[in-house]
């Protein structure tokens, strides 16, 4: 099999290119065309890519990872069961959780735990989304579509449990579409601390 050699012609060797002036005229013509189109052309034909940021904003894409939120149950408590999956998965180690047991008379006692402290250092977060992937309960989400509101104080970026619970998702709700069945749920009988779901 003979080698297939593709000879590529060296650019810039024709007479017109060597003289240089026609090429300059060509380049100038192109630049002038852009200039006139964008300066004096009708508005529809302008191709300005600039976004005047504070006044105009580009919608973030659907799967944009914004600041975190903690989803709520129907009663407003966090869905989080303090399993520590997210803080374990977090490569930046920005999630701090203190798990706590429910009171013994609570139906959830012994069935699951809850976070008494849930804190995310948003400045340390690298927004990789591993915490969302790791969460077995769909309790932490990054679907807020917001980035951090700026502040001059470092502690303003330590988001505690209440702050995280108070951030709605992009659709404005605090819940998630995934159902969660509490102990004593009539549609799912038999869920208790011995028979989890």
């Amino acid at each position: 099999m003979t080698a297939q050699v593709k000879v590529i012609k060296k650019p810039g060797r024709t007479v017109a290119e060597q003289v240089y002036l026609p090429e300059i005229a060509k380049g100038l013509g192109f630049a002038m065309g852009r200039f006139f189109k964008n300066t004096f052309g009708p508005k529809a034909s302008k191709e300005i890519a600039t976004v005047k940021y504070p006044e105009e904003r580009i919608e973030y894409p659907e799967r944009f990872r914004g600041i975190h939120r903690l989803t709520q149950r129907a009663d407003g408590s966090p869905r989080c069961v303090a399993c520590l999956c997210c803080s374990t998965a977090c490569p930046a180690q920005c999630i701090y959780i203190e798990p706590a047991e429910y009171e013994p008379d609570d139906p959830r006692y012994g069935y699951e735990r809850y976070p008494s402290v849930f804190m995310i250092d948003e400045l340390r977060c690298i927004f990789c989304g591993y915490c969302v992937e790791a969460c077995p309960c769909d309790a932490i989400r990054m679907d807020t579509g917001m980035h951090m509101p700026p502040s001059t104080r470092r502690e303003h970026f330590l988001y505690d449990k209440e702050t995280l619970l108070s951030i709605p998702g992009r659709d404005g709700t605090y819940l998630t579409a995934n159902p969660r069945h509490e102990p004593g749920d009539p549609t799912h009988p038999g869920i208790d601390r011995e028979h989890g779901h």
Partner: protein
Amino acid sequence: MSTTFLVISSLVKVVVILVITVGAFAPVLIWAERRQSAMIQDRLGPSRAAIVLPPSALKWIDRARLPMWRLAAATGIVAIVTLIALSFVALEGSNPLPISTAALTATFVGFGLASVLLRVGYGVHSMIVGNGGRIMLIGLLHPLADAMKFIFKEDFVPPKADKLLFSAGPIIALIPAIAAFAVIPFASTLHWDYLNQVLPRTGEISGPAIPMQVASINVGILFIFAITSTGIIGAAISGYASDNKYSLLGGIRAASQMVSYEVVLGLTLVPAFMVYQSLRLEDMAMWQHQHIWGVFIPPLTLAAINFFVAAVAETKRVPFDLPEGESELVGGYLTEYSGMKFGMFFMGEFVEVVSLAAIASVLFFGAWDVPYLYRDGFEFSLPFVAGSYSVPLVHWVVVAIQFAVFLFKIIILIWFQLMIRWSLPRFRYDQLMSLCWKGLLPVSLLNILVIGAFMLSGWLDGWVAFWDKIF
């Protein structure tokens, strides 16, 4: 003409030139260059610098809206009533239409003016209030912001720099650029005693005549060469005085580049002197006014292109910005400069752009000459067709039109320079030098021979006579 009159008129001219170059063109160019590049590259460019009005001022503007509408409505009603009344007068009178055209014109003009004012007021109002009290003026405030930044920045001088030369550099770079304007004619001669009269087209006119240039000296264009070549010293000594290797290299590059192109610059213009037979710029302008613009004489077209290339190289801007060469020399001779000293270099560069445009337009584009405009007004005529349509104009209007057209020509040429600046990539240093010594220099020397042959063979006279006949 009394000495006082001479002194005052010269001072006025100097002030006007300073205002136009340093006060208007240079700051606007700082903005225009960036804005134009943005438009070429599909960006918006500098457009956000704003004067933010306090909310109370906004409230006042909003309050002024109603009186404005009332004023406009009143003006409209008055105009309509006046019109009706005038037409009644016209119908009642025994004479056919005693209502004068002047009265009608005045009414219509008044009405139109009021509506234009209203529209402008409305536009300004929506521009300010609709923008949340921020006056942006499509970014024209950016030069202002730049100037403020330049003024308040630390005026840093490198510890081992030559303090005197370091400070003198920007001044030496800026002053010659402005001084070149001294010999540029901005319009034809102004005859002070006949401002409101239509002058005869030809012939001498007595009384005080003000040439519309600061200095009418017989070396004219040579003065420009002499004064702009001192700009080399500014770049070179600022490179030397900065105590920085990169600055020194930039200064050396600037000196060698500018000296080389100075030679070409002079030689490209020799054909122009030969055709116009004068070194005075006002004589050149007058020749082009009487015959045709230099750029339409074939050898001078080539000279114009050569001149433009050499002059862009002389201003040290892209594609010839090797003295700055930020990719290899950090900032060239500008490296150590900051604050207003850098601003002076910057301003000098832009004033050079303006002066280059002015010189090019005087030499090749007819200076203040407007086609069909003569000393007694417009006279339009078609080639090969008998008859013409003339509009007589008073003297000061003619001069004002010439001045405005000269500024317009300068603006067009500046625009073209900015276009070149944003379209072409930079040369390599050896390419720059070979373009100068092996390209432009032989071509302009040959061009001298060609124009000589052109003149000796009588073709030039034939060419000029042919065009004279057509226009």
